[in-house]
C-alpha cells in the first residue's frame, strides 16, 4: 500500500470516473431516466390517485360547476376550495379526479395501440425481409399503400360510424394505422442483416426460419425496436387525442383529449375557465416530453457515438 492510494481524486478525475461509470452502463442515461420518470409519475398519479382520491368525482354532476383551483377566483367571484383542489368543469366534474383517471387512459391507448401495431410490424417486416418473393411483394405493397392513407380521415369515419367506442376499441383502430412504418423499416434492416455471417451460418446449420428470424436476428434489433416503439406511442397518442378533441373518443370514459373537446364546446375559453382546458393540455405536454426524452435516451443507448463526452 502506497500513500498514493489515499490521495483524494481531483475534480477532473472525479468527473472522469463518473463518466466512465456512466459509459459502463449505457442504460443509466439521464434523458432516458427523466423520460421514464415523467411517464411513471403519470402512472403513479393514476394508481395512487385512485387510492387517495375519489375517482367517481369524474362523472357528470358529482361536484359544483366551474369552481376554480384553490387560490384562484372564477368570473362569478367564487373561490377555489380544497374539496376540489384543481377546480371543477362546466359539467360538475372534479379536475383532479379527471386527470387521475384521464391521464393514464390517454397513455394506455397509446401504449396498447403501438404494442399491437409494433407486433404486427415486427411480424410482417421479418416475414417480408427474410422470406422475400411473393410474400415480400404483397406485404411491401400493402404497407406502401397504407402509408399514403391519412389515418385521421379514416378513423374519423370509423369512429363516427361506431358512435361510442371503448378505449380498447379505439386503440385497436389506431393500431391499424401504426404498423406500416415499422414494417418497412424492419424489412430493410432484415434485408441487410440477412447477408451477415451469423445468419448464413445459422441457415447452413439447418435452423428453422422462425428460429433465425426471432431468436438470432430479433435480439440484435432490440434497441432499435424500442426507439421505433416509443415513436409509434407518440403517434398513437397524437392520433387518439386528435380524435378525442373532435369529440369522437369514448363518451363517458374521461380522457385528456375529450376534456379539451368539452371545454372548447362549452365555451371555456370565453368564460376564462383556463383550468378546464389548461390542466389536460399541460399533462399532454408532460406525456409528450417524457416520450421525447425516452426516445432521445434510447438513441444514445443504441448509438454510442451520440453519447456526450463531457
Amino acid at each position, binding site marked *: 500500500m502506497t500513500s498514493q492510494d489515499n490521495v483524494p481524486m481531483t475534480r477532473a478525475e472525479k468527473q472522469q470516473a463518473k463518466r466512465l461509470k456512466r459509459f459502463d452502463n449505457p442504460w443509466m442515461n439521464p434523458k432516458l431516466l427523466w423520460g421514464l420518470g415523467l411517464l411513471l409519475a403519470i402512472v403513479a398519479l393514476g394508481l395512487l390517485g385512485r387510492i387517495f382520491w375519489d375517482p367517481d368525482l369524474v362523472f357528470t354532476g358529482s361536484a359544483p360547476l366551474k369552481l376554480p383551483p384553490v387560490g384562484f377566483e372564477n368570473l362569478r367571484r367564487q373561490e377555489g376550495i380544497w374539496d376540489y383542489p384543481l377546480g371543477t368543469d362546466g359539467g360538475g366534474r372534479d379536475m383532479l379526479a379527471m386527470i387521475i383517471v384521464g391521464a393514464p387512459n390517454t397513455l394506455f391507448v397509446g401504449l396498447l395501440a403501438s404494442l399491437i401495431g409494433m407486433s404486427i410490424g415486427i411480424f410482417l417486416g421479418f416475414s417480408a425481409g427474410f422470406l422475400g418473393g411473393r410474400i415480400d411483394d404483397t406485404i411491401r405493397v400493402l404497407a406502401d399503400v397504407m402509408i399514403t392513407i391519412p389515418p385521421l380521415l379514416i378513423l374519423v369515419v370509423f369512429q363516427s360510424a361506431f*358512435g361510442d367506442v371503448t378505449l380498447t376499441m379505439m386503440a385497436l383502430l389506431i393500431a391499424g394505422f401504426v404498423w406500416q412504418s415499422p414494417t418497412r423499416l424492419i424489412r430493410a434492416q432484415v434485408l441487410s442483416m440477412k447477408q451477415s455471417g451469423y445468419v448464413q451460418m445459422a441457415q447452413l446449420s439447418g435452423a428453422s426460419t422462425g428460429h433465425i428470424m426471432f431468436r438470432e436476428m430479433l435480439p440484435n434489433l432490440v434497441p432499435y425496436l424500442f426507439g421505433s416503439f416509443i415513436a409509434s406511442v407518440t403517434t398513437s397518442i397524437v392520433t387518439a387525442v386528435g380524435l378525442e378533441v373532435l369529440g369522437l373518443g369514448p363518451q363517458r370514459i374521461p380522457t385528456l383529449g375529450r376534456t379539451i373537446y368539452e371545454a372548447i364546446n362549452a*365555451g371555456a375559453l370565453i*368564460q376564462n375557465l383556463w383550468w378546464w382546458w389548461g390542466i389536460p393540455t399541460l399533462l399532454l405536454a408532460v406525456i409528450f416530453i417524457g416520450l421525447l426524452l425516452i426516445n432521445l435516451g434510447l438513441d444514445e443507448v443504441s448509438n454510442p457515438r451520440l453519447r456526450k463526452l463531457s
Partner: protein
Amino acid sequence: MTTPVLRMAASALAIAAFGGMALAQDVAREDTVIFDLDRTIQDPENFNWMTPGTKRMHGAHQTMWEPLFILNYGTGDLDPWLATGFEANADSTEFTITLRDGVEWSDGEAFNADDVVFTVNLAMTNEEISSREASTIRSQVASVEKVDDLTVTFTLQNPNPRFLVENFGVRIFGSFLIMPEHIWSGENAATFAFNPPIGTGPYTFASASSNRAIWDRNDNWWGAKTGFQDLPAPKRVIFLGSGGEESRAQLMLSNQLDAAQNVTIGTFEAIQAQNPNVIAWHDDYPYAAADPCARQLEINTTVAPWDNANMRKAVAHLIDRTQIVNIAYEGTTEASQTMFAQYGSMDPFINAVVDAGYGLSPNADPAAAQALIEGEGWAKDGDYYTKDGETLSVNIHVNSASTEYTRTIDMIVEQLQRAGIDARAVPVENGVFWGEVLPFGSFEMSYSWLSCGSVNEPWASMGRYTTADVVPVGERSPGFNNTARWDGEAAEAYTAIMADIAARPLGDEAVPGLVAEAYQYLDAEMPFIPLVQAAKLLPMNTTYWTGWPTADNYYNHPFFWWNHTHQIIHNLEKAE
C-alpha cells in the same frame, strides 16, 4: 368530348357573372343582419320545403316565404299576414280565409286563391310529401275551394277549432307555406327542387352553401307598395352556421353575428362582460326566454326491453330532474310536471293532471325503479342489471348542436349508470338527427321535444301520440308524430279520448277532466318521459341593429329560426 369543354366554359361564365354580381351587390356590414344557423345545409340547391332537410330555417321562411297568419305569443292573437281574416262555421268544420289584396310573388305574378288551392291540393294528393305541415293538412282537410281571387274555403274531415293556428298560424316553428302555382304546376312535389326559389317576402334568394345562406332585399316588395309594412331596414340577411358555443361567442364578441343560437348562462355572462351591446330576452338572470317545447326522453317502444311499460316507468323513476336543471341548465329552467309547457295558459290542464296524481316528481325514486326492474326478472350482477346473460343497456341518441342537449344526456346517462343500466350517449349531427334518426325510429332512446305543440290548449301536444300515427320502424313517422310508435290497448283507449277532445271547441269545460283521464295511460305506459322545461338564451347584438324582441319589447318571441321572424326583421332598426 365537347360536353366537358362546354361545361367548363359555362361554369367559367357563371363564375364571372356571379363574381360581377357579388361586386355589384356588395352590402355594407351595417346594412346586413347576420343570424346564427345551428346546422349544416345539406342540400343548399334545393328549396322544396315539403321534403326533409334544411329547406326553411336557413332564411327561406324567415325572409322569402311568408305565412298567412302569425300567432302572437304575447297577446295570444293571430296577427294577419298574407291573409287578412277568416270565418269559421259553428261546428268548426268549414273555414273561409280572406287573402290580402295586392300581394305579389317576387317575379311580379299576383299571389291569390289559386296558389292556396293549388298548394293545399298538392299536399293532399301527393302521399310522398313528408313534411310535418303537409302531413297535417293531409290528415285534416277534406277539400279546398276557391270562392274568388281572394277567398278560399276549407272543408275539414273532422271538426277542428284549431285548424288555422295549427296549419297557417306559425304556432310552433313553421306553417303551411303557399307555393307559386305558375312555377310548381306540372312538377312532382316530392322531387321538384324549386331552384331558383321565389316567394312573397321582402327578400330574395342570393346564394347558399353548406354553412350559410344569403338573402337580399327586394326593393320592389309588394308590402311597401300597398302600405302593408315599410320595407325592412336590413338590405341583406345572412344565416351563418357558427359551429359550437365557443365560436358563437367569439362571433358575438367581434360583432360578426347579430343574433346567436342558445348558449349557456356562463357563456352569455362572459359575452356580455366583454361586449355590453349584447342583450337577451330578460335584462337579468335568468336572461332566457321560455321555449314552448318542453324537453323529453323519447323512447322507441318497439325495441326490447323498452317495449315493456314497466321498464320505461323504471327509467322515469330514475330521472332526477332537479339535477338536470342544476347541471345542464345551470338553474335557468324548471322541472316538468307533465308533458306540457308550463305557460300560464296551460295551467288548467297541468293542474288537472297533477290533481289526478299523474304529475312527475322533480326528484328520482331509485327504490321504485329497482322494484320495477327486478319485477321484470332483471338482477344486479356487479355494476349492472342482467337477465339471461344480457346486460341491461341503452343507447341514447342526442343532437350534438348544443351544449344544453349533450349535457342533459350526459346527466341522464350518469343517473342510469348509477342505477345499474349501462347507458351510453350517441351524439349525432343536427341534420342527421332530425333527418335520419328520429323520424325512422332508428334509436332506443333519444333526447328531443316531440310532444311540443300546445301553448293554450292540450290537444296539439297530446294528439301527437295517437295510434293513427304509428308506423313500423324504418318508415317515416308522419310529421314526427308518435315516433315512440306507442301502440296497444292503452294507446287505443288514449286515442279514443283524443278524438273526443279534438272535436270540442276551445275553452270547453270538460276538456281538463278528459286530459286527466287520458293522462292515466301516458302515466302507466310512459311512451316518452318528460324532463324539464326549455329555456332559450339567445344573445342578440345591438351594435348594428336594435329593436330585438325582449320581455320589455314583446311584439313576439325571439326564436329567429321560426316562420314569424318576418316580424323580427321588420322591427329591426339601424343602431345610431
